[in-house]
């Protein structure tokens, strides 16, 4: 009795099918998958860099990291910034700035502005939920912020969306796991 056996019928047919797919692909399809992945990554990069040019800010989308602006902004909220040079800095605006020497941006409100005739501005900020102004956060001996410290002015707001970034910062293993799963999905999915 001839047993008509086909090589591979004994392979398990559950989640390991993705590797079955990979094995069936020839070189051209593999290159196609990799290029597809590269296209996705470069499109994301282009959109980000395009936003930087459009808004004039080095970081047009930021996630609120602290509770110093509650109840307006909570940890995990998303802010959209612009930083046009023609816009003067005025009291009441919410600015995102970086203190010299530290690279964590801070989101607070401008409470004092002194601008000279030639356009030189010095200003002071304070978080809505803080009792005192930000002079304790500035550099030693620094009493005012200048235009060069500003990353951007907050123009738009979305709640909760930035929580993903905060979780990824607090639990780096989650970040690597997420990237690995996304990478595996894009690379191994067959375009059927």
């Amino acid at each position, binding site marked *: 009795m001839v047993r008509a056996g086909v090589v591979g019928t004994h392979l398990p047919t559950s989640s390991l099918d993705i590797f079955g797919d990979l094995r069936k692909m020839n070189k051209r399809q593999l290159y196609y998958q990799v290029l597809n992945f590269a296209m996705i990554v470069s499109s994301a990069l282009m959109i980000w860099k395009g936003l930087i040019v459009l808004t004039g800010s080095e970081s047009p989308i930021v996630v609120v990291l602290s509770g110093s602006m509650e109840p307006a902004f909570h940890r995990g909220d998303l802010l959209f910034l612009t930083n046009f040079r023609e816009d003067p800095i005025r009291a*009441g605006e919410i600015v995102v700035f970086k203190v010299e020497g530290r690279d964590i941006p801070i989101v607070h409100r401008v409470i004092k502005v002194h601008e000279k005739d030639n356009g030189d501005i010095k200003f002071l900020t304070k978080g809505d939920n803080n009792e005192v102004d930000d002079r304790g956060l500035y550099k030693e001996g620094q009493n005012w912020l200048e235009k060069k410290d500003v990353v951007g002015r907050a123009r738009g707001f979305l709640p909760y969306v930035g929580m993903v970034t905060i979780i990824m910062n607090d639990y780096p293993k989650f970040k690597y796991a997420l990237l690995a799963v996304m990478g595996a999905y894009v690379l191994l999915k067959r375009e059927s």
Partner: protein
Amino acid sequence: MNTLLSRANSLFAFTLSVMAALTLGCILTTAFKDRSAPVSLKVSRVLLKKVEDFTGPRKRSDLGFITFHISADLEKTFDWNVKQLFLYLSAEYSTKSNAVNQVVLWDKILLRGENPKLDLKDVKSKYFFFDDGHGLKGNRNVTLTLSWQVIPIAGILPLVTGSGRVSVPFPDSYEIATAF
């Protein structure tokens, strides 16, 4: 691929797209609204001192004390996409050394659901009104305005200035209180 996984994936992608479209719709319904309102401001007392600025730069600067009344009806500014209003009273003036000076003297957070009609009397300034120098002495053009920032549930963050303003004439010498 396991069908459960691909179904969960499609469901997740669909939910995200629908929520994004809804949020965009919500933002657009209130993006172009006029958020201004009439404001009535009155000043009742002004005092000028010259003190070393203990809040920061340690130089002797003009320090002003202002007591004021605020009256405003912000009911129309609140709508279904407003989470809170951040109100602030700012003094704007011009001096010899600085063309534009703005100092926030008082602020208030008005949450959704709180009484939107303001009628406050004899309010003292919350923050120290230090000038960067001696520009307050004899300055007749210090203007007080009430502005507010609209914090939406999702969308644009506009800054609006109320339509009433009042001018505070500062005295020509120190330590003399002027009442109106």
